[in-house]
């Protein structure tokens, strides 16, 4: 991946950020709110046209975000199908994974109810379960880790680690610094769209924590 920036109506979200990710790497992308992490991730997924610079990938990147596809009026079950099909599965593949998804989300009893009757925790669990049911070449994860209760967070972290087995590259956007230390092989820190540090998670995170005054780290220690 080379230098890139995205510009539209005077917003230059990411500028002059260059890096290269090799197969087998799990990259944690960190930075404050509005630093351009999510823009960068969706650019890697091919969802953002670039004003300049370029991105090159091998294989099809899959961004784990299916929230937009789901319809609160429909039952959880229909949403599972909708989400799977939107991620590019065929109907038979979706049927095959249906039980696992429902099981993982812990929603067996509620799956036939309309999704609008779900609590926000139940919804995010369903999103996460659907989103992580694919096995892509390049997996891009945007802030889906910090959902649900402790037990679910623990299981979802494990799920991401499992996915690393099948995915060749994982890029993770998160505020959970503890998660980065735990699952990532490399961390990239960007701030105001500029690359601040890139290297082993511990080094990069130490710099980041020093920069922010250590605010983030304690949030998720209990994972």
């Amino acid at each position: 991946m080379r230098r890139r920036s995205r510009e539209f109506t005077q917003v230059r979200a990411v500028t002059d950020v260059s890096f290269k990710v090799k197969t087998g790497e799990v990259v944690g992308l960190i930075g404050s709110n509005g630093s351009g992490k999510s823009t960068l991730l969706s650019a890697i997924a091919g969802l953002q046209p670039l004003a300049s610079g370029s991105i090159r990938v091998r294989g099809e990147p899959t961004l784990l975000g299916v929230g937009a596809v789901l319809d609160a009026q429909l039952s959880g079950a229909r949403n599972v199908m909708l989400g799977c099909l939107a991620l590019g599965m065929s109907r038979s593949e979706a049927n095959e994974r249906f039980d696992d998804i429902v099981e993982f989300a812990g929603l067996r009893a509620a799956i036939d109810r309309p999704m609008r009757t779900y609590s926000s925790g139940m919804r995010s669990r369903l999103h996460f379960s659907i989103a992580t049911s694919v096995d892509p070449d390049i997996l891009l994860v945007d802030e889906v880790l910090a959902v649900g209760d402790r037990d679910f967070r623990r299981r979802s972290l494990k799920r991401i680690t499992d996915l690393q087995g099948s995915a060749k590259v994982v890029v993770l956007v998160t505020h959970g610094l503890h998660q980065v230390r735990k699952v990532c092989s490399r961390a990239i820190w960007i701030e105001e769209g500029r690359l601040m540090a890139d290297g082993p998670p511990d080094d990069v995170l130490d710099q980041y924590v020093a920069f922010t005054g250590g605010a983030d780290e304690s949030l998720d220690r209990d994972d």
Partner: protein
Amino acid sequence: MSGPERLDAPLADPSRRRPVVEDLRRIWARRDFLLFAAGSDLRAQEMDTVLGNTWHLLNPVLQILVYFLVFGLILGTDRGVPNFLPFLAIGIFTFSYMRKVIIGGAKSLHKNRGLIHSISAPRAIFPIAVMLTEAAAFAFPFLVMLFVAVVTGESLAWRWLMMIPIFVAQSLFAVGLGFIAARITFYFRDFENILDFLFRMAFYFSGVLFFVDKFVKDPTARRIADLNPLLDFISLYRWAVLGFPVGTRLIVSALAWTLIAPVAGYLWFQRRERDYGRE
């Protein structure tokens, strides 16, 4: 973690504009999603109402009653049309199907911006999904239309089967214009309002409420009217169900629209594929 295993795909720009063949293949790969989403949309539409899905049937019935009262009984636009009620039903329902597909197509990129930002499917699926949803929804007015025809004394004929190819042709035409409307609306949101107005006008110029042959006497005007695709498709239905005559020019025009609109519309839409993720 498993040992790094090199991906053998070539290095490519993830936001590149795909060649048409690849794009079509990717659309085809999403067919299950398209069909399922269309069914789900239809299901969600009337979910909060007491009568639920009955509204899909009640709406067209009520609609046809209003037009029949105003235009048939009060204004008397039925002159020269022996069986006005099915004539009117065909006009209104098939016109409104095309209108919904095209206006829905125009809105589809904006309406699905959440999806556009989260899945990398070909953008052409959005106008197509609108068409499929509306096609499924058309089953209800279609049944009302046939019911009205039978009740008012039309007898079943083999000709009625021609409604199937006419419907397919009409859908292809409409989704083609849906593509065009989608691209224009993406760069120029005001087009939604303009389109609304255009359809209000087209409603009166497409013989929805009256038999064009009785009103348009001037041969040049009649020839021009034959090129109006909305009128073409409505007239073809009226031929199939009620046996109204259609001229060769009208048939050729309908065929041309059926073939040219989707191909040209899709190609023109797809040229700007890369832009549609922008806000």
